[in-house]
């Protein structure tokens, strides 16, 4: 909605008008937030979510433009359409926030997460874990005679599925990066 004009990027292609604002259906949205890389900026964003009772399902942050001191925060959140709009507007009014993109409604996007999974197993289970890793295009980044550390990249669902398969085979530890996401195309 042009009149709403939440910070640039977030609303010009927003499907806000198309979605029922009164809907009580909880949706999952991936937001990309471009911020000044200054001290405390992550605390500001996280504090906003906790202070106003919003959900964070996943959050990643890293500097993406060293010269411009810009960081990109990718946050996956859940809420009704009106809550999602409110989250975007609240993020947009933080002083160090430059842009808020709702990748879920702005158009097609790609999402990737990296997972490291340690599987402790021997015998058939060890062989089976390696076979499944191949199917999932996970690679082995560390190995002992009793363990593997697999590296897997993909959507969160894919990593969930891989972890579920590894669990009965001896999954010992998981580390995940959270989601990084970009819109498709050159817009």
């Amino acid at each position, binding site marked *: 909605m042009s*009149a709403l004009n939440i910070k640039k990027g977030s609303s010009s292609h927003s499907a806000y008008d198309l979605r029922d604002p*009164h809907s009580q259906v909880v949706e999952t949205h991936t937001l990309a937030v471009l911020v000044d890389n200054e*001290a405390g900026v992550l*605390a500001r964003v996280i*504090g906003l979510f906790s202070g106003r009772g919003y959900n964070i399902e996943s959050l990643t942050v890293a500097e993406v433009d060293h010269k411009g001191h810009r960081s990109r925060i990718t946050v996956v959140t859940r809420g009704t359409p009106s809550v999602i709009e409110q989250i975007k*507007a609240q993020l947009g009014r933080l002083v*160090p926030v430059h842009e808020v993109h709702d990748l879920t409604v702005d158009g097609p996007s790609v999402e990737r997460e990296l997972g490291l999974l340690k599987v402790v197993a021997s015998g058939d289970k060890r062989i089976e874990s390696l076979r499944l890793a191949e199917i999932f295009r996970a690679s082995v980044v560390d190995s002992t005679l009793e363990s593997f550390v697999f590296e897997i990249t993909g959507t969160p669902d894919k990593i969930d599925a891989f972890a579920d398969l590894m669990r009965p085979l001896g999954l010992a530890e998981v580390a995940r990066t959270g989601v990084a996401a970009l819109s498709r195309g050159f817009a």
Partner: protein
Amino acid sequence: MMSRTMTGAKMVVQALKDQGVEVVFGYPGGAVLPIYDEIFQQNEIRHILVRHEQGAVHMAEGYARSTGKPGVVLVTSGPGATNAVTGLTDALLDSIPLVVLSGQVPTFMIGTDGFQEADTIGITRPCTKHNWLVKDTDKLADTIHQAFHVATSGRPGPVLIDIPKDVQFATGTYIQAREARTAHYQPKVKGDLDAITRLVELIETAERPVFYTGGGVINSGVGASQLLRELVDATGFPITSTLMGLGAYPASGKSWLGMLGMHGLYEANLAMHGCDLMINIGARFDDRITGRIADFSPRSKKAHIDIDPSSINKVIPVDIPIVGDVGHVLEDLLKVWKARGRKVNKDGLARWWTQIEEWKARKCLTYKPSDTAIKPQYALERLEALTRGRDRYITTEVGQHQMWAAQFLHFDAPNRWMTSGGLGTMGYGLPASIGVQIAHPDALVINVAGEASWLMNMQEMGTAMQFRAPVKQFILNNERLGMVRQWQQLLHGERYSHSWSESLPDFVKLAEAFGCKGIRCEDPAKLDDAIQEMLDYDGPVIFDCLVERHENCFPMIPSGKPHNEMLLGDASTEGAIQAGGAVLV
């Protein structure tokens, strides 16, 4: 030509001067000594020494709200900064521009739990619009200029700059305000013309329109209030306002319905409930306004003009959102409306006003008069009558007296009414009145108070005396926490848990102890003379007005009820609030 190399402490004072600051409210301490040293060596900026840092922030709020300029506060690290937190939160909720400077332990001691160290940035992050820790003297001037820009641009609010002591001692390069980095924060002020035109179309046909205005009109500046008056008078639409917006449209204006909301006027609330077009200008559908959300103005189209996109659709979904500064939007709105022929639905409007006059005839502010006890409403009616036409500023504390003041005092100009709306901070009014008086030395400044609220920051009478601020403290003393008592009566089975004021001081003797004038009055027949004595006295006055103890504030929309289920003064209050409403505040 001024040298651009100077110490951080000197930079602070220089930057304040360049920002046009005339007054700083503050309290010294170890971590701000270098800045106080610089303040000592100049005469352009006046420093008001407060008695408690909370007082400093409320004074700065009073200063800001009565002038439209940002208020400036200087406090030390640790307890100095934590004492400022209530004031910062108050200013955040009421969108008041403040720049608070706090001292901090030296950079090399941060994180060591040093003496008077607190994580001021962490503590104040959620109660400021933005805050900065400056670790490099070269960045100090830029940060201070940015701070003024952020505090006053878009939706105004408080900001804080935390300045470690070594940064104050070190030298760096000063930069001017125009060289500072402000481009990254430029909120949009012009409203979308398509949306404005859609609103004009509704204005042209509406049968039962109402303007619902708020503090955003005041914050947008005197010009916005002028435009609002022009629009209201030209359309002939009725107008009501929130607590925060009183004075933007004159109470003496013919379209004025009075304040709306929980203790708003019957006609204002029923107009909101029954309207077919609601035009919200700079208000935010606060819960004190809406009552039960599901039944809020069920048959109206709603337009919302607000500079903050996050205010829109936050509580009440609206049909026409317009993001922009009230002044700019009203200017365009008037232009479009005039260009299209200044049309309104005259017949519909006439019927609507007939209906409103019927509601007005209920005279919802009627109270039972008394010859023996001073009714609080009567005290305010007399205060209004005896100060009408004066250059008058009113501050309040929080509670029943605040609502009665909003109902019975009338404001014909903006920036004349300073009250803690969003946060509801008891202890706000006395320091705020001092801040107002410092900004307007010759004006009549009255703090309408309750005795319990007033005690919360009464130490600031010392500040009023020291700086010859002749503030009048008009205390409606019912020896009760009146609003708490009222709710306990209505909601908690008349169990008055801790809601009376035991061991009150003798306010007249207290006044004498501070060196100012004390007046006590408990006889309605003597009230006029006593108020006149207060007004005539050249100096601060503490007026102990002993009022009826168990008066309730009506009208009242009980928690969890819609606008059309208000309680009026003569109505039975038995079972008025159900269990569901009791959980609400």
